[in-house]
């Protein structure tokens, strides 16, 4: 493992000797997605506070990780296997924002992932998605598809047995997969320090026979670099990569959580100085590509976009009692068919 990869530093300057792959226009595009993510989170948190939204885990502070990794993929052939904090990565990959929003609102049919969108559903069972992601990548290779899987996991989730089994199997099968570990320093209230004694989660890759890299996860240019390299490697048939993206959870675990119970305010303050969005804005300002006006305009545009999606999701049909039985079996057992009839009868009667 090399050192922590860094391109765009917290002060908005390029690190000495860095050779970023991301060009300016593309960086503007990345900024757009990061801002969209931040604005969406802000709005959803507000809605939740008003009782209009369910439990939600924002990506705040991790936008460079989420967006930089997703931008390394080709949505027409690659796949995203999320945990639950990478909402905007899946949207970037083609999952309409109103659909993933509808899922949070408990909608059923309107929350269906559309055919052709290569995204698996949000996974609540921590790390359970990883063996599945390995199987998916392995299967895509067996099917002769030119596809790569990007699988997300938190540093907390990397303690689960599934993490180990999935990475080991991916190594053995040389599957085209990138394990993108977002180390945001927290698993709910549990500090990264008591989650593992290792100094870098990227070290783990050596135990599975493939490369591990650590990257400044608040640096979208660096994240993109290592993600592209890993995707290329996978696509060439050289097997998996583990990326540890070192970032910080700037808001809270989810909307039911209150970090003041356990988080050191100083640590939080330090983290804010490494904000992934501000540094891009600073850098682009230096290049004359960004200013307050553009920021206001883009903010307004993205807010509108997000609002449209939110309204679509709210307006989408509410679930009906029969949805209890929807999408479980292709051929449901007779007893389940009867239970459905009972429920509907009971509600009619």
């Amino acid at each position, binding site marked *: 493992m090399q050192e922590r990869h860094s391109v765009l530093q917290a002060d908005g300057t390029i690190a000495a000797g860095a050779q970023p792959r991301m060009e300016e226009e593309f960086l503007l595009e990345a900024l757009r997605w990061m801002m969209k993510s931040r604005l969406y989170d802000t709005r959803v948190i507000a809605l939740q506070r008003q009782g209009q939204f*369910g*439990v939600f885990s924002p990506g705040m502070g991790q936008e460079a990780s989420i967006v930089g990794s997703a931008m390394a993929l080709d949505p027409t052939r690659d796949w995203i296997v999320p945990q639950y904090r990478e909402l905007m990565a899946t949207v970037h990959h083609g999952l309409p924002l109103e659909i993933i929003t509808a899922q949070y*609102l*408990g*909608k*059923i049919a309107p929350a269906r992932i559309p055919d052709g969108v290569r995204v698996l559903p949000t996974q*609540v*069972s*921590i790390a359970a998605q990883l063996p599945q992601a390995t199987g998916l990548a392995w299967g895509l290779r067996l099917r002769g598809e030119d596809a790569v899987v990007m699988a997300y996991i938190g540093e*907390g*989730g990397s*303690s*689960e*047995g*599934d993490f180990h089994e999935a990475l080991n199997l991916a190594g053995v099968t040389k599957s085209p997969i990138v394990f993108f570990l977002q180390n945001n320093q927290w*698993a*709910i*209230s*549990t*500090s990264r320090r*008591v*989650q*593992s004694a290792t100094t870098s989660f990227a070290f783990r890759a050596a135990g599975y026979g493939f490369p591990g890299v650590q990257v400044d996860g608040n640096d979208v240019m660096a994240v993109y670099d290592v993600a592209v390299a890993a995707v290329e490697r996978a696509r060439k048939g050289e097997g998996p990569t583990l990326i540890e993206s070192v970032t910080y959870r700037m808001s809270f675990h989810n909307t*039911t959580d209150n970090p003041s*119970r*356990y988080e050191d305010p100083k640590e939080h303050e330090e983290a804010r100085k490494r904000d992934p969005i501000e540094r891009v804005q600073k850098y682009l300002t230096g290049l004359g590509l960004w200013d307050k006006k553009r920021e206001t305009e883009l903010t307004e545009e993205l807010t509108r976009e997000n609002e449209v999606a939110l309204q679509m999701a709210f307006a989408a049909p*509410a*679930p009906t*009692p029969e*949805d*209890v*039985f929807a999408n*479980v079996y292709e051929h449901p*057992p007779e*007893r*389940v068919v009867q*239970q*459905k009839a009972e*429920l509907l009868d*009971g*509600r009619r009667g």
Partner: protein
Amino acid sequence: MPQRTIVEAINNALAEEMESDPRVMLLGLDVGKLGGVFRTTSGLVERFGAERVVDTPLAEASIIGASLGLALAGMVPVAEIQFLGFTAQGFHQIGPQLGKFRQRSRGRYNCQVTIRAPFGGGIRSPEFHSDAIEAQFVQTPGIKIVMPSNPYDAKGLLLEAIRDPDPVLFCEPDRLYRSGRAEVPDGPYTVPFGKAAVVREGQHITLVAWSAAVELCLRAADKLAEEGVSATVLDLRTLVPLDIETLCSQVAKTGRCVIVHEAPLSAGFGAEVSATLMEQIFYDLDAPVARVGAFDVPFPAASLEDYYLPSLQRVVDAVRKTLQ
């Protein structure tokens, strides 16, 4: 006498037992500074220190497996699994290990381990958080399965669990955690395992339940009373051991029975209760024993849980049908 919620009763039981027995320790996700996602362990790390109240890595199998080892070393671990649904990740360390370890060692070792886990629907949780999978553990003998339904029992059964030399799975009804206070004395007392509680006495039908479903049955009994139907409500309290005697005598008294649980119907523990009644008091039954459970599909999105879970309506309907 002090009034406590279930959360407070559990917190009180843990604090007192840690105070009186230095071997008792807590481990699990976020049990430390956060005090657990439901605050059942609130204030305990401040009081007993981070060596006895341990935030573990996110890895259920190791929480349970390590608890077994801690017990062998002479500690008395009380492990918290954040939600019962996530015991699945450590399933192989529960029945197949905790439940068999004494047998495997020909009696040399025992596992004085308590696993606490909240569960149950009705609080609009994400996937897995509501799963009522208690019956699965009955098929891996060696584990006792405890399902308190109220603050008094929660404390008394938890103390019994912690002190039991056999391993215990202690399932907490999260919907009732703060739903009301009841008298919970300070100081130690235990509620024995294998003694069901008659929480309401009636003549026409016996409602059998455990955990949060007891509360539902009490509401159903109120409703039925309006119609002139008087119902016994029996709280099993523990599934293993099962209090067959009280179960049978209470159902025999009314001749009719409805079993209510939050788990899916098929192969839920209600089936065991019904089969036991069949075997033991068939000739005392005036009508077939009925079951009301969740449907045989996975727990759906929170927006649908009211349709999925046994409802007051479904319980009352089942009673009416049984009384026909």
